[in-house]
């Protein structure tokens, strides 16, 4: 298929359809409302369902219901909406159902603003809802990558029977870039016999599938949590994804940055190279599991004087970076909130400050 110029939000909606998700429940919120706008037209064309919930809380339980029945299902929202969904997300992880949540982040806390932000890093990677759970968190840096990640997210959600979150800043949803959709669609969840409550007559197995989150017996609940923990550990073994930039040379500074912010850093790195200063970058494509070992190795490399976490937040990912670098060299943070995306010049200025 040839390339088409598409807005991130619309491409995300189309990608989900092509991944075989014909169930979309959502509540509109800037800067992701175009997903709902697009799918309100597109879902009927493909025989799918778009239902606008009365609130994000309701949406999260519509997702739970559809997921428990073995349907591919997803939603999109932005920061305050994801806060409201967090209760449902906790339940879905506890019940071990696959679902995809897309957060096109805006500034917070509270109602905050509607411009790009990355301030939901903690919410996405450390919890948001209650209890010991994790989401597999994917962070696209382009519209094309958003498409690929959305499609992959359904496969991963079913592999781990756990929700997957796509964490994009407002620009990922708002900008237009050329995209190419993979041709092949995988419609049916492959392993749903073992968990979906879709009715005994839909399955080969005679095992009764049960969806629940209440475990009053302490031993049973501990065992359930150990089972979940084992899944998250498996993610850490199998799902670490990151990209490196200018990491082969003798860099003096190592940047860790993700999403749109990492592209700004790429331009800063190119510009600094021209003036003779080498800077390398690790861009986590998955935020959980986090590429801690790769960052540790890169920070430990001879000649690396400091690590800089660049993010559109007041310093969230930097905590994971510190945890990864474990004292190999100093760790700095640079970022901005409120919607003004730091410029390459500002990132360059920060790097020069560290060097001096």
């Amino acid at each position, binding site marked *: 298929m040839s*390339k088409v*110029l598409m807005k991130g939000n619309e491409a995300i909606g189309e990608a989900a359809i092509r991944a075989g998700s014909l169930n979309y429940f959502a509540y509109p919120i*800037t800067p992701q409302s175009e997903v709902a706008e697009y799918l309100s037209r597109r879902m009927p064309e493909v025989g799918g369902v778009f239902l606008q919930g009365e609130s994000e809380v309701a949406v999260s339980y519509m997702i739970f219901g559809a997921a428990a029945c073995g349907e591919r299902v997803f939603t999109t929202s932005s920061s305050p909406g994801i806060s409201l969904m967090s209760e449902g997300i906790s339940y879905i992880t506890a019940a071990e159902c696959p679902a995809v949540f897309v957060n096109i982040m805006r500034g917070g806390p509270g109602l905050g603003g509607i*411009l790009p932000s990355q301030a939901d890093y903690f919410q996405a990677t450390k919890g948001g809802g209650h209890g010991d759970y994790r989401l597999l968190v994917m962070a696209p840096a382009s519209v094309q990558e958003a498409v690929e990640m959305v499609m992959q997210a359904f496969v991963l959600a079913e592999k781990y029977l756990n929700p997957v979150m796509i964490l994009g800043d407002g620009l990922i949803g708002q*900008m*237009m870039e050329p995209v190419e959709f993979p041709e092949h669609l995988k419609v049916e969840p492959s392993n749903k016999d073992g968990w979906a409550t879709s009715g005994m007559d839909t399955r080969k197995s005679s095992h009764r599938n049960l969806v629940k989150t209440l475990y009053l017996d302490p031993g049973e609940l501990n065992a359930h949590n150990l089972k979940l923990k084992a899944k998250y550990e498996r993610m850490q073994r199998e799902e670490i994804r990151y990209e490196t930039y200018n990491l082969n040379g003798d860099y003096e500074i190592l940047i860790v940055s993700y999403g749109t912010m990492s*592209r*700004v850093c790429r331009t800063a790195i190119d510009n600094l190279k021209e003036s003779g200063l080498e800077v390398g970058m690790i861009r986590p494509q998955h935020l959980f599991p986090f590429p801690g070992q790769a960052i540790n190795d890169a920070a430990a490399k001879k000649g690396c004087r400091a690590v800089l976490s660049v993010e559109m937040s007041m310093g969230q990912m930097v905590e994971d970076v510190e945890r990864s670098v474990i004292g190999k060299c100093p760790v700095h943070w640079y970022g901005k909130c409120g919607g003004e*995306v730091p410029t*390459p010049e500002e990132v360059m200025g920060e790097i020069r400050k560290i060097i001096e």
Partner: protein
Amino acid sequence: MQSEVQFAGFGGQGIMLMGQILAQAAMQQGFEVVWIPSYGPEMRGGTAYCTVVAADRPIGSPVIRNPMHLVAMNRPSLEKFAPTVKPGGVIFVNQSLISIEAGRDDVDVISVPIIEIAQKLGNIRAANIVALAAFVARSKIVDFEILRETVKGKFAKKEKLIPLNMKALDEGRKVALG
């Protein structure tokens, strides 16, 4: 090679569409492209702007503070963005609405009375296509024939508007090169 174009004006002047057509044409020509809208608590008649980046390599920062070129469709846009344009770039001025100078002698300024031209063509709504044609002809950011095909494609569902827009393209180019 990378060039950036800032389109700016009032909401309703077709700012977003101009940017999208240019981005589409640049993509057809084989460039990497990004189109970014200004989005925010906007209102009818308020300011609207978008940025198009076209490059022969993957585009790093999609956020541009200092564009190569500017298409200013109203006075506030010219006042706000003219100082940000890189030396050597093109500043397009909508002469029908802007009575002041760009105030730059290190850029190529092109002023076109696009509303009057569009009126002569019979439809004032083609003014943004006149502007886009003049800008593209002058900046040579994309091949003019590819632009023509893209505009045709954009109006594929409103075929009766194609002849008008083709004339608008020709007039815009003529003014820019004349």
